[in-house]
């Protein structure tokens, strides 16, 4: 056991423990914060595995952007503060499938690698990785930029339902009022974010 192995074991234990809490906790916000710990431990593992650039990108994009987005979504959907009991469905099938996938992959990988050891290669610094990205992987890189643009446009269309509806109706925007709208769209522009009244009452009665 070298120092790298000890570090990998420690980071791995933290990552798996935090991951377990993400899928097991009954507090919505705490699930997001445990996800931060899990992703941070994974960034540490990337550092030990000599993937410097990937580790810092992981911290920037995952811990910095994705988790913040997820926490925004938790708050925008009016998640209850404190423990909530209705987060899970009764899940023996989930435990069976998830445990089967995890333990099956573990058995496969343990059987493949045993207790062998390898020497760590040269570190994946920004210079080396940039050289690879812009020499061997330029085409996938460009395709990814198109995908990001498509995701951006898709998110904008989803967030503004009137765009999609106008195209679907094929008519002028004045046509909007005469079509039978779904319940949430019945209210006008100012009330768009508030859910319809019967739904709210039902939701409150359910909690």
């Amino acid at each position, binding site marked *: 056991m070298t120092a790298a192995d000890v570090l990998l074991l420690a980071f791995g234990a933290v990552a798996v423990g935090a991951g377990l809490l993400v*899928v097991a906790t009954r507090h*919505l916000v705490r699930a997001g914060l445990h996800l931060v710990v899990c992703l941070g431990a994974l960034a540490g593992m990337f550092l030990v595995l000599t993937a410097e650039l990937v580790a810092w990108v992981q911290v920037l994009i995952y811990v910095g952007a994705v988790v913040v987005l*997820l926490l925004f979504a938790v708050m925008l959907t009016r998640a209850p503060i404190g423990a909530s009991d209705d987060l899970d469905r009764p899940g023996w*099938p989930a435990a069976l499938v998830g445990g089967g996938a995890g333990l099956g992959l*573990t058995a496969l990988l*343990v059987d493949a690698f045993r207790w*062998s050891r390898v020497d*760590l290669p040269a570190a994946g610094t920004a210079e080396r990785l940039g050289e690879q990205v812009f020499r061997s992987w330029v085409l996938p890189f460009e395709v990814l930029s198109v995908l990001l643009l498509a995701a951006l446009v898709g998110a904008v269309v989803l967030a503004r339902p009137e765009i999609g509806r106008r195209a679907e109706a094929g008519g002028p925007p004045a046509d909007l009022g005469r079509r039978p709208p779904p319940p949430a769209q019945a209210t006008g522009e100012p009330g768009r974010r508030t859910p319809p009244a019967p739904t709210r009452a039902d939701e409150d009665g359910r909690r």
Partner: protein
Amino acid sequence: MRPVIPYVTAALLFGLGVYGVLRRRNAVLVLMAVELMLNAVNLILVTADTTVRAQLPHAGQVFALFVIVLAAAEVGVGLAIVLQLYRLRASVVVDEVPLDEDAAAEPVAATVEGGR
């Protein structure tokens, strides 16, 4: 470096992600479990980069970068869908999402008890 340690960590994280996706009813928590699975795959890619000597150096790490970008795009669109669902149904419980055309017009009350 013993490659079996990060590999086993990644396998366990992937299992936890699968479990979370199947178990959770809240759509935001389902997205978090998907992030766990994506990160397990990233760990596999980065570890494979150190253990397998490929013809192109650092291909695994480049793939991990690509997966991170894909995950960012996925979470953006996914959260837009979740917020739209919340605006329409005042609930992000995936069990109660109506899957047939007619159910979109009826009130939520009809599906709440049926979803249990």
